[in-house]
């Protein structure tokens, strides 16, 4: 998809953002209504395609260390794409947690949570999950995905299974 946002007026950019949010909300709500918890199954397949696209744009996920893999993804989104203000990594034994602050999708996530939907389409979640599965041998699962609209912070915790 190629969109020349520089040719847009501020009003058009705002409408474009609203359209993307609306599509994301509709897609997640629709899938959740059909599949429930199993909606998380798409995280890996969506992440796989997103990772391919972003690798072509310079994202490098190398090695097997879960902390470094999650850090590569977080750094790319914050430094290169500016979709969040900052991120932190917390690693303990077989788990790695990604704390994300002020993600641009926070308002969509907030609306979904209010409707009883556990968000599952999140660039940090989908790509980190896929990178971990791809590089650590496949056995990674998400054990925590908290979205706090008040502090505008998200916590994503992954576990590498033995």
């Amino acid at each position: 998809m190629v969109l020349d946002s520089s040719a847009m007026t501020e009003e058009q950019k705002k409408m474009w953002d609203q359209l993307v949010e609306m599509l994301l909300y509709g897609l997640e709500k629709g899938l959740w209504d059909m599949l429930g918890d199993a909606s998380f199954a798409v995280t890996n397949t969506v992440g796989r395609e997103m990772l391919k696209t972003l690798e072509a744009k310079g994202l490098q996920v190398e090695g097997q260390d879960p902390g470094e893999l999650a850090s590569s993804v977080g750094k790319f989104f914050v430094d290169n794409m500016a979709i969040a203000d900052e991120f932190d990594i917390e690693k303990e034994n077989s788990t790695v947690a990604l704390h994300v602050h002020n993600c641009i999708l926070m308002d969509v996530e907030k609306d979904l949570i209010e409707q009883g939907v556990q968000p599952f389409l999140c660039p940090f979640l989908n790509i980190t999950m896929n990178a971990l599965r791809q590089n650590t041998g496949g056995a990674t699962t998400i054990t925590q995905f908290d979205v706090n609209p008040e502090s505008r912070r998200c916590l994503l915790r992954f576990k590498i299974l033995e």
Partner: protein
Amino acid sequence: MEPVSEVLLKGELGNVDLPSLVEIAASSGDEDVAVVINTPQQDLAVFVSDGRVVHAESSNGDEGIKALAKALAAQEGTFRLEPARKAPKITIQQSWNNALLEALRLLDEQEAKISPQTTSKEENMSQGKKTRERIADVLSNLLEDSVDIIGAAVVGTDGLIYSADFPRRDADEALIAATSAAVYGLSKRTMGQISEGDFVQTLIEGTEGYMLVRSINRSVLFVAVLPRDVNLGMAFAESRTVAAELAEILKALA
């Protein structure tokens, strides 16, 4: 043993083994079939009901797995398959594969006299295995022993692959895991809508075979690939047994 007038099949032992006779009995279309074996030492009967072995007995008074082991070991004598002969009791509740394995283990113990030290060492090694390796072992044993299941996987409802072994080597396991989870999600939602209880399993029929998705626990699924000529009753029973076994192993991850 009570006499019957009709016989589905009869012959000499040595030309055919017990597993083949049970397979014939299970797929005969008769609800209850007895596989009767007469040897110089004793008479034996293995009862098949709804495609499952449910009871075995011998004229020496043995029942269950012990009698099944004797029937398995019988090498000379005659056999006959008697239809419409109901088991007098249920002494075998596990799947045919598990019953067979247990009977073989019993024979091994009797014949080879395995030392307790060796058994203990093997048990410790098994316990020391990682959960995913134990799951892989269960699937490997299942595929080795079963004629009704030709491919299998254990996947999470989030698409995580714990272990997979499909007949097609180029299968996209990640995609199969994701679609299995989607099948589970849709089926579970549908069960909720029609108020017929919780999800247990879904069977998908194709022109060349079947795919079965069965719940192991709230977040993990057992996926099986079945051939076109499968005995569905046997496949369901085997899936039920293996799912229970996997549930025990997965408790370690809870």
